[in-house]
């Protein structure tokens, strides 16, 4: 019948801390202890621990592992999991070959946070749903089966695509939206060996297991993100719409990439942020764009296609219109950019 207030800075939960010397050791530590967690920049994990949302019994610090490199590989670019958001955003190869990634990163958080936050941590950051972050409320994602107060509650920042009756949270990352438009591949290593996961298979929709955010196993370590070179990656950009100019998550955001030849769109990528439980790649919009003339009419049709299945909540119907307009705006912008001398 009564409510306690917001974030309670409770007595600190105790945990052990271990700095891993190499990847194998880090993986072993986490595989041996079901409630251990990798620690990268700590900008998300430590906050959630302070708010008692997560209570790992062990932190395995991976910051000393040699996973910071950003390098060209025959198929494109390889970004180490520990490269910071600032390093990636300001990297020449990224800015030239994959501008959408740089723009998305710079639209997020603050310079201080970007200097700490890593690529791996960004991929795994948790939702900003206020009910998830406040232990005074039930939440299916935090305590499976306890209910979702966001559905009847204030849900302005929640999903309009791909939600379920168990959870309507959104994935808050800007970076991941860019990765979705770049066909990124996440390389991971675990006790059973290495594997690669396509970005679109990495995050999950909530379904009836909203407590599971991604298809990564708890003991798998992200080692790098590979970006394949492509013509569309060079002509790419990011638009983020938020409630204030700085320090706010996206109401909606769009990553767009186009390959245009003689006014015709040869290939296109569209991904939306702030609208779903995962970065929302819109193959529907891409279908409309591919093969069409690069003009305002095409862009509008693509925007309509992208939002066709949208189901708004009580407080966020505006996001549907906002997302459409953001798609048109960024396509206009990207199609008009000069890329390697040709517009």
């Amino acid at each position: 019948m009564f409510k306690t207030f917001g974030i309670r800075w409770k007595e600190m939960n105790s945990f052990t801390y271990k700095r891993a010397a190499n990847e194998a050791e880090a993986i072993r530590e986490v595989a041996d202890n079901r409630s251990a967690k990798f620690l990268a920049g700590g900008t998300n994990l430590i906050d959630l621990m302070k708010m008692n949302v997560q209570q790992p019994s062990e932190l395995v610090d991976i910051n000393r592992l040699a996973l910071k490199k950003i390098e060209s590989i025959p198929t494109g670019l390889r970004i180490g999991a520990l490269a910071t958001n600032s390093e990636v955003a300001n990297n020449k190869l990224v800015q030239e070959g994959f501008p959408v990634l740089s723009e998305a990163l710079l639209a997020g958080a603050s310079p201080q946070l970007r200097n700490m936050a890593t690529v791996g941590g960004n991929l795994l950051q948790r939702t900003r749903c206020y009910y998830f972050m406040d232990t005074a409320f039930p939440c299916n994602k935090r305590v499976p089966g306890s209910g979702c107060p966001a559905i009847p509650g204030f849900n302005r920042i929640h999903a309009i695509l791909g939600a379920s009756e168990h959870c309507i949270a959104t994935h808050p990352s800007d970076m991941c939206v860019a990765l979705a438009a770049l066909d990124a591949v996440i390389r991971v290593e675990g006790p059973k060996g290495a594997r690669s996961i396509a970005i679109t298979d990495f995050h999950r929709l909530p379904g009836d297991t909203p407590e599971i955010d991604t298809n990564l196993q708890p003991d798998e370590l992200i080692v790098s993100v590979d970006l394949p070179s492509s013509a569309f990656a060079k002509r790419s950009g990011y638009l983020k719409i938020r409630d204030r100019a700085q320090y706010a998550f996206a109401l909606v955001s769009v990553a767009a990439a186009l390959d245009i030849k003689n006014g015709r769109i040869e290939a296109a990528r569209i991904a939306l942020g702030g609208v779903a439980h995962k970065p929302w790649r819109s193959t529907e919009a891409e279908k409309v764009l591919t093969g069409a003339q690069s003009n305002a009419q095409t862009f509008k049709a693509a925007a309509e296609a992208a939002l066709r299945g949208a189901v708004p909540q009580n407080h966020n119907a505006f996001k549907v219109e906002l997302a459409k307009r953001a798609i048109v705006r960024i396509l206009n912008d990207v199609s008009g950019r000069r890329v390697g001398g040709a517009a």
Partner: protein
Amino acid sequence: MQTIGRPVPRKEGRDKVTGQARYVDDLIFPEMLYGATVRSAVARGRIKKISFEGNIPWDEFTIVTAKDIPGENCVALILLDQPYLADEFINHPEEPILLLAHPDKHLLEEARRNVQLEIEPLPAIFTLEDSLNRKEIIWGEDNLFKSYKVEKGNVDEVWQSADFIIEGEYETGAQEQLYIENNGVIAIASPEDGVTVWGSMQCPYYVHKALLKLFGLPEDKIRVVQVETGGGFGGKEEYPSMIAGHAALLSWKSGRPVKIVYDRAEDMASTTKRHPSWTKHRTAVSRDGKLLGMEIDFVIDGGAYATLSAVVLSRGTIHAAGPYSCPNVRIKSRAVATNAPPHGEERFAESNKTSRQKKGMGFASFMHGAGFTGSGEKYLESVVGAEATADGRVRILAASTEIGQGTNTIFAQIAAEALRLDYDSIEVAKPDTGAVPNSGPTVASRTCMIVGKLVESAVLGLKQTLSGSGLLKENYTQEDFRQACRSYIEQHGALKSYSKYKAPPGINWDDEKYEGDAYGAYAWAVYVAEVTIDTVTYEARVDDFVAVQEVGKVIHPILAAGQIEGGVAQAIGYTLFENVVWKDGRMINNQMTNYIIPTAADIPPIRVFFEENPYAYGPAGAKGIGELPMDGAAPAILNAIENATGASINHIPLMPESLIEALGGESG
């Protein structure tokens, strides 16, 4: 040496910059307990049962209910309608029901979660409309806290002869003040020694008055001390009386000092906010641009209890017609009850509708009365004291609080200037009801003009005493003054002087007719906003802002400009960002992650200009400034938006979703 008009260092600036300043949460008393408040989750209902559950050592806790109150269970302010602790009936969510104290903060929190309240819900109302239509009667006989009617000329006759009639309805939302320091107090209370409270607050004597009733003690048994306070913006006017009472009740029962400090979420959900409002304007204009008549209906949502709604309403009533000359006016205003936590004062803002008739982009002209409205100052009878020490230092005794806005600094400047002494030789005593007289609350843009004037006359009283006893000649130096003080104190004992408020000549107010000079003086201003509206993404940006005002003589140019810049920034938040979301009377976005306030990146350059026109009855010619900037920014911005887009927007905050609606037809 001249100090007025110069940017002297702030009196408490060094302590704040070096971290020496001590706020409530920095203070630890021996044997101190922590206090927590158990609140209602329902908006309206009847308490059936309270039970203490869980694995909690309940016998270690001090538990206070309404039954433990030694005096009267009401927060004495204007009306005596708000209880300290709900006894049987609940009238709003977050209403305090029970108090707990324990030495262990963490256990206290566990315990708070384990108090089970069984409440039988009663029908509640949450909108102005439902309250006005009396869907339920939740307060008095008609849900009406207060109403005013002001008439001039004959409004009913102007409509026929008018060339144009302009009509509109306007809505403003609640706004959380978001002072940096949350509310907090420490209390020590016992039947033998009475009650002493240290706290973050704007108005120590409001707290004093409330505690007198709560404990039924004589005046000298209650002492209220303001400690360093991290901002107020009107949000620490009435609610500190509530928290102080709670901590004191826990201390009274436990026999130990008790500290209550709210966290941000509790502070945002349960303390007062700016009143939401609805206004209807009908204005008759002639072809040559003259105002012929105005009819204004103005309603504010006061929440569940009266608190200061009547004061806010009277100010709104008087400011409703704006600074314009108009022969025929009718203003009707009402403050009504809903089952939401009571709304309190916040730097007042009143959209200036008549500016819609002006051409030009984003322009608002307006005024703000300084001091209490109507006969307010007369009834307050504020007093300020001054005391000189044997080493020639002068100490000002006033209950006006420094809450970051510069009270201490300007008081010292006014005193130094009046006595022609060094700024450094003036001290300002800590507001402590046991040691300083009641100079009234720190609200209503009154501190500089009204209290500052009392400071000036109190210190001049010291000089008069010294010259009257032949110890001080006409032209004196700092050293002469010091020697005069020393001799006086040796011969006569303490050297003190008090000064009490008197209305300036020619200022009269009729309470019955609600007519006359509502304020001794007004500050005047013209604000211009330049905005960019993105018609594709609905983002509204204020690109440039010019604030020109006449506030009499400017005492401290940096502090004065800071007041304007801060007020404009706050008003930009009020207009474009800050959205209090209510559900069944509760604020549900009571976290800083989802109650969006502007950051530095959202605030344009604010270009501040002062036109100095000294006011004869203000200290060194100064008037009030505090609330002024809140009044003009919203209308200037909305006018700029209208100018930019053609969309006339009549409600704030203006979120992207409202712009979508307003600009719906436009293409991307």
